[in-house]
């Protein structure tokens, strides 16, 4: 049984448009059976935070190609990508690189 977690979810690079323009979200993830990992977090975000056009953010069970994920300012590839287990007070940042310029 995973305890409730308090994490900060941030969106940048244009991804915030899908979340009503709000960049930073302080969320409290409810306690649940399985431990919280990025995979579950994405499902949770899709259900609770994403306001529109889910296909522009999520593809399958991962993020759409072109969206970077940083956990505590580090590349999620170093941490196991979707399998990284969230910890309390983590900061997860989603940056869309698709808005070039």
């Amino acid at each position, binding site marked *: 049984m995973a305890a409730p977690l308090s994490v900060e979810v941030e969106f940048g690079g244009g991804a915030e448009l899908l979340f009503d323009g709000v960049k930073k979200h302080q969320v409290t993830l409810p306690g649940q059976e399985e431990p919280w990992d990025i995979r579950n977090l994405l499902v949770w975000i899709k259900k609770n935070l994403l306001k529109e056009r889910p296909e522009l953010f999520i593809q399958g069970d991962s993020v759409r*190609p072109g969206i*970077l994920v940083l956990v505590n300012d*580090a*590349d999620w590839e170093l941490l196991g990508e979707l399998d990284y287990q969230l910890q309390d007070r983590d900061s997860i940042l989603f940056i869309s*690189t698709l808005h070039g*310029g």
Partner: protein
Amino acid sequence: MCQVGEDYGDPAPEGPPPPRPGRELKCVKCSEGLPVVVIRAGDAFCRDCFRAFYIHKFRAVLGKNRLIFPGEKVLLAWSGGPSSSSMVWQVLEGLSRDSAKRLRFVPGVVYVDGTCPVVSTRRLRRVAPRTWPYPILGSPVVMIPFCLHLEGAACGQSREDRAKTLSDVKRILQTLGFPWHVVTLEEVFALPPSVLRCSAPEPVGTVGTYKVAVDSFLQQQHTLEAEGVGDSPSSAQGEAQPSQPCTQDPQDLAEPPPAAQTEALSRLFDSVKTLTAKEELLQTLRTHLILHVARTHGYSKVMTGDSCTRLAIKLMTSLALGRGAFLAWDTGFSDERHGDVVVVRPMREHTLKEVAFYNRLFAVPSVFTPAIDTKAPEKASIHRLMEGFLLRLQAQFPSTVSTVYRTSEKLVKAPRDGCASGPRCLLCMCSLDVDTADSATAFGAQTQDFSQMQPPTPLAEAGAPTVPCRSAEVGRAPNCCQGTRPCRREDSRARVIKQLCYGCRVNMKDVPSLDPLPPYILAEAQLRSQRLSPEIQEYLLENSDDKAHTSGSGAWGPPEQEGKDGQTVCDCINKNIFN
């Protein structure tokens, strides 16, 4: 020598500290630091090594190509987005380094503002179902994906949003300390036709010349420092003095552009049928505007922030759009098609991931504004489709983008035989890749379709539906149909189409009427056709002409021409065979 009982000092050190959870790797470069980012396939860099790597790449690209001479004025095209912001920041950092490694050119920044007042909701509902296939949302500000910070034809941003964006932009520009120029996209309606003309290029320096220039610059620098002039010569050469960082009257920025121009811009973009054509048109207009600013203020180089990923996408998209002949110019490091102003792309070796990480880790300011294709579905335009395709492929095969990019590096800018100084496309200013004499080929036949359909005339003996009266190819006499029907509009459209390259012609297919185009384009088209037509008249009257310029005779034109009408008939028949 060892001795029994000797004390060897400290006890043996303990084992290495336990690795941090999830980060067993070390930085591949320094083998010490904690890695924060993975570049390419599996290279983990720590923060400092990443920074050094990033900056080094930028300097290496500039140094390798040796195009920017010391003291040269370079205009940085800043859109507010991450890549161009990163580029501007690199230049800023590069200029503040110690003298040996300092960047040696004189920068200025241009920002094209295109945000405009919100379009009326009535218009929204009319426009949206036709153009945008996804459901309309409540807030028009978020929904209309037209406006780009740069070019904001029919933009959905309200005045307040626009003012806020502009104030953010100004704040950043003021911290830079370079001369800056903010232009609105509406100013395309005030551009002179001369912007479409290729000016004589400045003499290109060879490597030897570059070295000589650098050496003399350094010598000058030392001399000035020795004489105690004070700061580096770069400030004496006209780099922004702190007293006048902005080259524009602040009052100009406070006023929005005239409503008539905004309206005209909205009309133009509303009339374009597909998003692909809109994006291409936007790109063209923006290029012209930046070119104009560069020429007006004496900049000989323009730097754009195209990243590696963007260029790979652009390469594939250009192929799909029929711009294959110009890939080397569109995606290469330097683009000399404009003659006196050369466009360079110093960010072309940085991927979007590296740019995003750098901007985040080192707090590079950027301003986000929705673009014309924001939130557009995947198949809304060729650009979006290609972007989605490449990025998805990249996720599975991490060398995709770099492979495509390396291909672009191998493209050579070789002019076609005998066409080095030939006519240029009206819009993109590349050498025309359309062979006007080649009417017998499938290509020649295909381009007939760009004329508007009209009922057949008696001249179409082969019975084909389309009449080559509005033929864009051959230089026909203006009155070939003997005035049997009024075709002035088709004439003027045909006149413009004739002066475009294949890619631009494909684009113009989606622009039903050329009237909303900015006047400088139509004026230049008129000027060029007037310049051409006397020559054509001249050729048409001559018999058994072996000149390559003879329009329309090509491989089919028999030497025994019967004058204007005969040739026209011949060409009509020739074309109809292929229709």
